[in-house]
């Protein structure tokens, strides 16, 4: 388009009000238009058990009155989450179907967290697990069920300032961790002697087992 033609066209269109929207007007100081780009980043959560299944032999105390773990067992989970707030749950199970193996009698999920192991193929029933997890266990009432203390260590490298405070849910027998986005390492050490009155001759020889699960699904 030659300039003279363009000018004539522009003047004609202006006279007709075509540019009244402000898209183009003679003598205008300014014209502009914009594009707003928008990208949606969905929630992402990855939980990996970074340690293999942990096993240890145990040593009996004098007169079969106590038992202690020979090799400390540590289960570790690594977590990556991009949600600004995400709740993870630590849950415990053992060989007794439906039993809630994790417990904290004083509600402190850091300093008073325990788990009940039960014998694979043993006679423990839900009541035995419940008794072992009680504040006053009775040896005769927790057959093939032995409780040990868990020492948790939770770190959150990229978001340490926010901290992660565990919350014990006594109704659902699980620990809740509310984490901001970032990566986290959740480690659980089980070592030392069994909890008082949860080991006795009522516990027959064999393999005792418990499972810790870290998940974003509440019980």
């Amino acid at each position, binding site marked *: *388009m030659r300039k003279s033609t363009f000018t004539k066209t522009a003047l004609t269109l202006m006279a007709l009000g075509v540019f009244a929207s402000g898209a183009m007007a003679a003598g205008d100081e300014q014209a502009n238009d914009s594009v707003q*780009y*928008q990208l949606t980043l969905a929630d992402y959560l990855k939980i990996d058990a970074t340690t293999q299944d942990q096993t240890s032999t145990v040593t009996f105390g004098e007169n079969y009155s106590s038992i202690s773990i020979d090799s400390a067992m540590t289960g570790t989970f690594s977590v990556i989450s991009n949600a600004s707030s995400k709740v993870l749950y630590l849950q415990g199970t053992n060989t007794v179907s439906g039993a809630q193996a994790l417990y904290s009698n004083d509600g402190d999920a850091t300093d008073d967290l325990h788990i009940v192991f039960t014998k694979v193929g043993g006679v423990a029933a839900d009541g035995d697990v419940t008794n072992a997890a009680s504040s006053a266990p009775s040896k005769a009432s927790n057959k093939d069920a032995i409780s040990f203390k868990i020492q948790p260590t939770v770190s959150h490298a990229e978001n340490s300032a926010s901290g992660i405070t565990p919350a014990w849910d006594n109704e659902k027998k699980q620990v809740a961790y509310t984490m901001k986005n970032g990566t986290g390492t959740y480690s659980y050490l089980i070592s030392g002697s069994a909890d008082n009155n949860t080991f006795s001759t009522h516990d027959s020889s064999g393999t005792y087992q418990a499972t810790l699960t870290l998940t974003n699904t509440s019980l």
Partner: protein
Amino acid sequence: MKRNILTSLILITAVLTSTVKAYGTVDVRQRLLTSAEPAVAIQKLSENNQGVIDPATGTHGGLSASFKITTNSDDSGYDYFLTSMTPTSVPTSAFADIGGLKAIVFVNVENEPTYQDIERAKMGNKLNKNCIAYPITMNIESPMTLEYVPENPFYGNIWQIKTNGGESSNLLQTVGGTPITSTYNIAQDSSGTYQAVVTFTAIAK
């Protein structure tokens, strides 16, 4: 010229007032003059402005927009440029040059990054929580040209257009789908909506 006008007026007066029969012709001419003022129009022609980021990689399918600029003025009449100010409480330019790669920084509008995070993202520094930089390319039809101009006093980093005598050209901008290394980190960048706004402006000098 004055003399001619005077003559014409006398003649017109004579024609209008004289009752004497005239024996000649009177030729009155009027010259019409007008001027074309500078004019400019900028119109967005198309946009592909929505996308979804893969959390694992930070990639998306690519975005784009096109604009049309029409002007009867040359580069002395207007400044033509593209700006992108972050939609944050302390706005700053979202355009960047990261290691020679032209980029645009998207920010999380639900978890607003700090000014420092944005500036670090523009430098390719990995401490850029809730900012993600993607490559951006700009192309404009000849004879118009554009170039990246850093640190404009008013708008920070901008893209400046020269019309070079052209009167109408289309501009296409494309946002690449792969984040610039170190600006996306799944552990830093929280889920939500990331946004960038590009404005094409012509302003009279």
